[in-house]
Each structure stands twice: as C-alpha cells, then as structure tokens.
C-alpha cells in the first residue's frame, strides 16, 4: 500500500498490528474533520503484519504520545503527495498528562488539576515512574 495516496497529511506506519484503534483514541483523531484511514493487518516484510493510519490533514502529531505507545512507529509527513520527512520515535524521557498515577496516596490523585508527570525509569523494561510519588508504571500497550 502506497503512502502517497494523500496530498497533505501524516502517515503513521509500522504500528503493531491491532493497536491502531488505541492510537486513534490517544491522538483524539475522532475530533478531526478530515479523512482518516485506518488500515489494519497490512502485510509487512519486517513485522509480519502491521497497521497504518493515514490522516489527510497536516496536523502536529504528539510524538511523545506516539513514542510512549510504541517507539517503533514511524511518522511520515506528506506534502503535495510527497513524503518530505520520516521521523523515527523513541521512548520519551518525560510524559506530561499522557498517563496518570494510580497510587491512591499520590497528591495527583487527590488534586487531579496537577500536571501528571512521569519520568522514564527503565528504557529496556519500558517503565516510567511518577515524578511525585515514584510509583512505577509499565507501558500498557
């Protein structure tokens, strides 16, 4: 499947098969007015199967959210039908208001207006810790 079938927009490629709807929700793509295509179970030489999302609008994608969900995703920026940039992601060092602490003793649970800040704890194990209470959280995707 070609990625140049949209004129100006973003293609999220190499999504782990079956995870595209999670990303759709996390990026709040349902709020967009443009065309959004979710292509599931595309054959891939590297991954076996993968999902792809095509967004027909030049929006700013939150790379921290994507990097947290799956650092293997690639982000392709399309302009005038041509890929002008291909971004490779990594696990972000710091997450703000992407995940929330579940520790009932944490101040962010008592005062949810505080920014929920998590810091990368172990890149190999994909764990983050709450900057307030140090509670660990595994990446849950």
């Amino acid at each position, binding site marked *: 499947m070609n990625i140049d079938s949209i004129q100006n927009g973003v293609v999220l490629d190499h999504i782990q098969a079956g995870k595209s709807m999670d990303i759709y929700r996390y990026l709040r793509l349902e709020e967009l007015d443009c065309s959004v295509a979710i292509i599931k179970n595309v054959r891939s030489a590297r991954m076996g199967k993968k999902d792809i999302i095509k967004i027909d609008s030049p929006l700013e994608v939150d790379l921290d959210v994507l990097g947290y969900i799956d650092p293997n995703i690639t982000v392709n920026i399309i302009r005038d039908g041509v890929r002008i940039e291909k971004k490779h992601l990594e696990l972000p060092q710091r997450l703000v208001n992407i995940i929330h602490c579940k*520790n009932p*003793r944490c*101040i*962010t649970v008592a*005062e949810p207006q505080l920014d929920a800040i998590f810091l990368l*704890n172990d890149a190999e194990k994909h764990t983050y810790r709450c*900057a*307030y*209470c*140090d509670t660990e959280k595994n990446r849950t995707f």
Partner: protein
Amino acid sequence: MPRNLIDITDLSVAEIDELIATAEDIIAHPAKYQDACAHKQLATLFFEPSTRTRLSFESAMLALGGSTLGFSEASSSSTAKGETVGDTIHTVSCYADIIAMRHPKEGAPFAAAQYSEVPIINAGDGGHNHPTQTLTDLLTIHREKGQLDDFTIGFCGDLKFGRTVHSLVTALSRQTGIRFVFISPEELKMPDHIKENVLAKRGLAYEETASLEDAMPALDVLYMTRVQKERFFNEADYIRLKDTYVLDPEKLVPAKSDLCILHPLPRVNEITVAVDKDPRACYWKQVKNGKFIRMALIMKLLDIRV
C-alpha cells in the same frame, strides 16, 4: 529558581558532607550562628501531625536568630476549605523566606515546589520521603561511627511505608561499603522501587529476613521503625502486624558492643523503655542532632554563610 530539598538525592554526597561539617561546627560553636538568619522567616506547614520535626525546625530557626509562622494541622488551614497545595504555597511564599512542609499525600512537596518562589523543604510526604530525618540519621551515624562508609545496617519493622527508611537507604547507597539487611514481615517488605531503582541499579546487594534475632549479631547500626497505623487502609492488617518486632534488652544480648540503635520516633512499643538506658541507644541523641542539621540546611538553602 529557589533551591529545594524534596528528595535526599537533591543533595550531592559532597553537599551532605558539607552540611554535616556545618552541623558539627554549630554544635561546637552555637553562639557563632545565633544571628545567622536574623530577620528571616520560616513557615512550617504541617498538614499532618508532628512533634519532633516541626519543633526541631522551629527551634532551629529560632536558634539562628530567625522567626517562624505556620500551622500544625490541616484543619487549621484553608486546606479544610478545599484549597489546593499549590494555592496554599503560593500564598505562604508571599510571607516567608523558606517553607518546611509535611503532607499526608506522597509528592505534595514536589507539587508545592512548582508554585513556590522560596525554598521548599520536604518535612515528610506520606509514606514516601523524609529527607531531613535522613540528614539527622546521617549526622548521628557520623557522630557515633566517625564515618559514613563500611558498616552493616539493619532496617527493622515497616519498610514498605517507612519514608525515613526509603530516604536513608537511598542516601547510604551512595556511600561505599554499606551492607544492607532488611528485616520485616512479608507484608511490609522494602518496595521494589527502592530495591530495583536504588540498590540494584548501583549493583548493591542486600539481605532480606523476617528474623531480627538472626540478623542482630552482624549489625553495626540498627534502624528500628514503627508500624504506622495511619498508613493502613485496613485496621485489621495494622493490628495483626503492629507488634511483629519488639526490641528489648534480651534481644540485644548477641548484639555488638558498639551497636548504634536508631529510631526516627515516635515509638509505640517496638523499643521497650528498658532499652533507653543501654549506651547503644542513640535515638535521643538523634532527636537533638535533628535541630543542628536543620540549622545547617536552612542556612544552605537561604545561601547564608557564617
């Protein structure tokens, strides 16, 4: 940005050494420091009850020639009206030069520091951290052992919710030659985030046991803790675990003659009163040392040199 003390690792090992040296000088020459913080104000914001920590902060500031203001329980502050930590701190930082705060919620001082224009000192946040107690413990160990390296320390009791334990283990993990023994019932074991993120990351070994008797002969320092009722959601669990360890003169028979027994206090019954007379009991010295190290800390965070 003001300098804060939220977690003991906010201070480098060299800075802790410097604080201990200052505290030793304050003990030796108290008059030299009596006007060090003249016209400065310390706010003590205690959203949770305390005797030693709050009074030692206030005593420390008064001994430096400064003054204090604040509250000793959340019910006498606007928290009772639903005010957030951020708004309370924003307000108080308009009136005080430095703030020491205790809060039952973990991470509350970290939140406070984001709103404050003056230094914030974490005086205990739930079961999480208590860095000034750690400084007190380090000063006491240094005074009793002459150094902060090469000894075996046993932590006994509630190691899960014991914030003083977490901070002290973290501080000692940066020293050399420390052997850690964790003595607790299964339900109150040291949390994984301390074992993995603090000890394992530095390649430090530790021993875990449920038997204080078995651990006792090897210890140079014994850090007793109280099983804290206020940390339990279920009272039945508290009642079942609260008397797991009771240190009495009999249990000290196999201990080393120069064992240093510490306790952050308050105690309930985990150390019997009979142990107080033993020369190895250092917890009352610890209380006294708490004032001196807090004097040193207040001066450092206010960037005051004598």
